[in-house]
């Protein structure tokens, strides 16, 4: 399905999430499902939580114990395939890469979008971070209802 439509299957998606109790703290989720020659996520991680190894075609393995949810890998991934997520009560707090204008502003409500590009929920923008080191890949913090934990992937300006 992914190689026909660009949409990962539910089981592919779930395979990259940790157990929900681990998401009390923010953790990266790496949706890299193909052996491509690429390793910036591994070199960006200051905690050694991401392993690819000498053969850079291997898909990254994430050690959730070592991951602090710092988001350095999020803006390093050329495929925009990494986000950080944390469960807070009945909400899920996502930190996602974003490379479009206009950028969302704190306090706005944008559309929450799934991996097919469909609008599924409200996304409350809690912040937008952009530093020189992130090189124009901003990180948007968006809060969505926890039931969309495995479906939400990005935000879209509400028209």
């Amino acid at each position, binding site marked *: 399905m*992914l*190689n*026909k*439509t*660009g*949409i*990962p299957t539910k089981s592919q998606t779930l395979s990259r999430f940790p157990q929900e109790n681990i998401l009390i703290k923010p953790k990266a989720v790496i*949706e*890299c*499902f*193909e*052996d*491509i*020659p*690429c*390793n*910036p996520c591994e*070199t*960006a991680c200051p905690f050694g939580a991401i392993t690819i190894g*000498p*053969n*850079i*075609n291997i898909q990254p393995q994430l050690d959730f114990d070592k991951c602090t949810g710092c988001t350095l890998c999020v803006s*390093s*991934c*050329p*495929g*925009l*395939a990494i986000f950080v997520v944390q469960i807070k009560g009945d909400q899920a707090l996502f930190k996602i890469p974003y*490379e*479009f*204008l206009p950028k969302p502003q704190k306090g706005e409500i944008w559309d929450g*979008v*799934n*991996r*097919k*590009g*469909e609008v599924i929920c409200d996304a409350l923008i809690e912040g937008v971070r952009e530093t020189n080191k992130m*090189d*124009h*890949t901003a990180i948007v913090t968006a809060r969505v209802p926890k039931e969309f934990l495995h479906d939400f*992937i*990005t935000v*879209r300006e509400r028209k």
Partner: protein
Amino acid sequence: MRTVELVIVGGGPAGLCAAKLALEAGLEVVIIDRADKLGGQLIKQTHKFFGSKAQYAKMRGIDIAKLLINEIENHQNLEIFTSTTVVGLYPDLVLTIYDQKKYQKIKAKRVIIATGASEKVLAFENSDLPGIYGAGAVQTLMNLYGVLPGKEVLMVGSGNIGLIVTYQLLQAGVKVKAILEAGSTIGGYKVHAAKIRRLGIPIITNTTVSKALGTSKIEAVEIVKLDENWNKISGSEEIIKTDALCLSVGLSPLHQLLSMVGAQVKYISELGGFVARVNDNFESTVKGVYVAGDAVGIEEASAAMMEGYLSGLHVADSLNKPHPEQENLLKYYQDELELLRKGPFGLKTKIGIEKLKVGESNA
């Protein structure tokens, strides 16, 4: 006629990297590029690159171009000819060049052909209507000149270029109606496909464009389903309104100077078309003429850079001026190149290189 140690034809990723190591080895280098500035296709690439540190991974292509150009442009042993076309290459390593004012001749001790590739096109009814572009032209208009190719675009081809240009069109505010793919699966990296699909752009496989509709410019496109043998399925035609069509259906190596100089070239579909036969040192069958980058087989720019570095090292060595770090760098870049080809996307290249080695067929 002046003689220089190394003339590099093409100032894209392969040519720039070749120049860097050749200059470090102490060679006198001339780079000739027909564009008005160096950088080749890198200067249109606004996305972050894949690969590892050796290929400047996670830098954007435009910034890699700046970095590579900065490293060499003020070197005292380098001369750069931009807006200049190499119109002839002869077996005695004389190049004739044309800078839009006058012809000149330069003699080289070594030549590296780093001419890159040209885009393939697709034949269909009305394919010459205004509003039908190659992906490279769309990138040039949009990313160099800030001109939108249209308000709505239908993309043909889901290789990495089709996927990346779709993303760039969306960033520029253009509506992309869909990406058509004639094959049964997406050609490029799935991370690129996923980041486009989540923006709501459908990717439609087993489908191609059968004709363009419109009088003075493109107004709509007829698309058609293809069976597994790429035959059109009649009755499956559908009309999609669009004011631009972007073709991203592959690249062909620019081998013409190599054919002209009499180098053996061979048609290798896995490498994108006619390519020169080269030995392990990137030297063609014409002594002193080397080839690097897409000109010797279509790959990502990351591989072109590695081949550029390697060809620069081999040329330096052949002139008895090895780089101070010759052996270490050869091993380093050779290993990096092999790593880039180690995954499933490198398989095609590896098959192509094997085919290039066998047989004597000439073209």
